[in-house]
């Protein structure tokens, strides 16, 4: 569907994208994930045509569109700010692209009302100014405006970042549902790893203009290809040499020279070890109560490890209590030490 081949983008002397290669499949929800300044929005803007790459090509349905004008690409976009025209009504915002295509008035009207119905906008809301709508409604207008011209692809640049936490979660679900209903190939940009994991069919993790890994949410989370990815996605413990040595002594195939990581939920407090698992003793240093789960900070030797336990209401450990921490060496993700150190 969409192929980015060896894309290089430069701003003056600064290289923003280094040899980006991505293949997005038809109907897929594909997310570009990474911290700010990593190149994810630049890649998106290269696809939509706002940025022209120095080298490489953008191919959509076997057609090279690298140098095709923005308006001729047939790619819709939903901006971070929604970019709704403040001086037009909701109706005029949605109709804007159709008017440019010089469609007949009644056809424009039919299409606008049809898409409005699909994204749950009432006739009354269509007559309003965009400033009179709530954040969630504005987002739906932006989506309707991007979809009404019938694009092959829709690009979304952090469309949830302007909303409060509760609305963000609610709209995230709506977004996914809409994408499924429309069946449209979607490229989504976000720095929020939770958003990426819940929404995407596949994710490309960006860092400093490179792609670190492309994979399904499960692959990205559980089989992070690089140290950067494993650190960027979710919370994680980097294990001290002391603990790693203990696991090696117990027969685990780990190396002290590697950087060894384990996810918080893979550790357990006061559980009996099974075959291949080991336990280390520690003292509960601090406890964070989240309701759904509890996060413990356990001092093990010179290191504090973080452990998450489901809140079953029974096993709750107090600060200062001595506990054992259960580790399964098969859950450890190891990366060669020569890789760049990543701040955790």
């Amino acid at each position, binding site marked *: 569907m969409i192929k980015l081949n060896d894309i290089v983008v430069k701003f003056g002397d600064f290289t923003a994208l280094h040899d980006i290669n991505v293949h997005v499949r038809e109907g897929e929800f594909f997310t570009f994930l990474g911290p700010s300044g990593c190149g994810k929005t630049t890649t998106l803007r290269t696809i*939509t045509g*706002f940025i022209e790459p120095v080298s490489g090509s953008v191919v959509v349905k076997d057609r090279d569109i690298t140098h095709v004008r*923005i*308006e001729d690409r047939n*790619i*819709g*976009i939903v*901006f*971070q*700010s929604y*970019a709704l*025209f*403040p*001086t*037009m*009504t909701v109706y005029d915002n949605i109709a*804007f*692209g159709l008017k*440019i*295509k010089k469609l007949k008035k009644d056809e424009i009207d039919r299409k606008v009302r049809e898409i409005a119905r699909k994204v749950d906008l009432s006739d009354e809301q269509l*007559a*309003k*100014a*965009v*400033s*009179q709508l709530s954040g969630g409604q504005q987002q739906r207008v932006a989506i309707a*405006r991007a979809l009404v*011209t019938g694009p092959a692809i829709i690009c979304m640049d952090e469309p949830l970042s302007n909303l409060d936490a509760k609305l963000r979660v609610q709209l995230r679900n709506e977004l996914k549902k809409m994408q499924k209903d429309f069946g449209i190939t979607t490229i989504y940009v976000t720095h929020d790893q939770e958003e990426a994991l819940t929404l995407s069919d596949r994710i490309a993790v960006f860092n400093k203009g490179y792609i670190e890994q492309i994979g399904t949410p499960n692959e990205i989370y559980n089989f992070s290809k690089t140290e950067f990815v494993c650190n960027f996605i979710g919370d994680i413990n980097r294990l001290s040499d002391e603990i790693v040595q203990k696991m090696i002594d117990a027969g685990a195939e780990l190396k002290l020279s590697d950087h060894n990581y384990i996810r918080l939920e893979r550790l357990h407090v006061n559980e009996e070890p099974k075959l291949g698992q080991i336990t280390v003793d520690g003292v509960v240093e601090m406890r964070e109560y989240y309701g759904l789960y509890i996060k413990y900070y356990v001092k093990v030797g010179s290191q504090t490890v973080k452990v998450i336990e489901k809140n079953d209401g029974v096993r709750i450990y107090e600060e200062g209590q001595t506990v054992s921490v259960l580790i399964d060496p098969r859950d450890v993700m190891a990366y060669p030490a020569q890789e760049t150190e990543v701040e955790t």
Partner: protein
Amino acid sequence: MSQTLDRKFHADWIIRLIGIAFFAYLFFGFMLVPCLNTLTSIFREKNAAGQTDPLAVIRFFLAGSMGKFVWNSLKLAILLVLTVNVVGISIVLLTEYFDIKGAKILRMGYMTTMIYSGVALVTGYMFLYANDGILTTALRQSFPNMNPNWFSGFNAVLFTMTFACTSNHMLFLRNAIRGIDYNTVEAARNMGANPFKVLWKVVLPTLIPTLFSLTVMTFITGLCAMSAPTLLGYDSINPEIVRLAGSSAADESFPQARAALLSIILAMFTIVLLTVLSSYERKGHYLSVSKTKAKLQKQKITNPVANVLAHIYAYILFIIYMTPVVMIIVFAFQTYSAIRLKKLDLSQWTLINFFGKEDYQYLTSRGKYKTRVGAISGVFSNESTLGGIKLSFILSALAAALACVIVVVACNYIFNKKHKKSGVVLEYALLFPWLLPTILICYSYRTFFNSNAVWYVGNQNLYYAESVRILIVMAYTVTKLPFSLRMIKASFYAIDEELEDAAKNLGAKPLRTFLRVKLPIILPSVLAVFALNFNALFTEYDMSATFASKYGTSYAMVIQNMCAEEGMYGYNVNASGRRCASTVFIMIVSGIILYLVYGVGSRDLGERLAIKDRRRKRMEKLRAAFGGGKESKSAA
């Protein structure tokens, strides 16, 4: 494909070249070259022996009395900074910060200078305080020994300008004080500071950047004062420049070069002050770090004595602001005889000062009665007054619109990322007139274009006959460019870059994006700038005085002339009344414009639609009530 690309490329280049040529023509032709000509004219003078002597004028300046004008202007500027700040800060604190009874009415009084200023205001004050003014006449009846000319010269200028120049305080300082986070005041109170300590230590420091800008602007206003010194008789720089510009070498030594020297001195002061101001502004302001600002609440003055004194002070200021306004309005509807006697005659209300004409019979020195046909006439029936209004209206509207169009086109160019460097050059070119006092620009135009030798205007003498109107429009436009640029540029910042991208993505070409997306967003600001430009130019005095001629008699000059010609040989018998009426007319025009700009124009689409909706609902209700009434009647 390559052919279309080529065509597009050519079209782009042609548009670009036209643009560059236009702005270069404007900058060099109407800003730099005329002003440079003024500068160099100082050094081209010939001495008594007929030889060119570059330093003749400067020697004359140092030896003669020209320094007096500079000193007088400086004295006025320095004292004005003090008095305007005292009054300006007072009126803002009294209406916005302290809890003073009747603050709303007080505010309206203090804001009257926004709807009448310049020559209209000065003549208004003269109507009250001049030797034959209402107040002076009334006072002389009680104190026959008082000097009837008490209101003239420096004191009169300082007094008038002090109250005339507080409009900026009412606009900018008021905004600044309303922007204060009230939580900071509460925090200071909570830590034990008394209200005056809070004012001194917390509130005023946040206002310093605004006050600094206001101080510089006031200083420049004082330095470049024109209408008040001219009408009230004070020898400052600007009136002297205009006088010298109209003088000839037969009457005095190199008048033109002296006028040029004075305007260059004024420009140097302005440049220094504005450089100081902009370097100060670049240092940054005290920005509020608060994300949840609390609205300022009025502070009660707890000390009863201080409270009473504050109220007395507030209302004395109110009286000073309002008396001329009230008197002008009242006397605009009085007959000439009541005005001459300076006595309100409640039986003599009339509209003659606005509309209509009457003949006037007077006794000649030979003891015969003579009738002057139409010697009493209203603003809208007196040919010269109406002519002035029409001329000013057309020229001001043209120039205000021209300045807006030029600046909008320029801003659209400046805000395109592709034109970074050339955009900066363009911006500075348009800001250039800011550095030059208006009088320098006018004087330069008057002398430079008063010849057939300027090739780039087709060897036409633009100061001659009707052409002077072109010159006035150009001067009006050029002097309004910096203000328009600052205001309209700010509105361009409000255009989210993503809006342009969105329009492009939906298929819109740059022209369509500009017309359908960007222009509607900035339009309220552009209209506001147009209105403010128009308001300022409509009664503008400096340029009017410089270009005054048979074909260039603008409204301000008409008003000024009305001060002098009253009743002589039975002509213009009701000149004072007409002057009052025309000031009322200015107030109405300015008031309507300000209402349209700040009231109607500032509403966004949402508010407009909401109002429309409310109106529709009201109509429906009315219709239902009306129709329902009918139905019930017929049912009965």
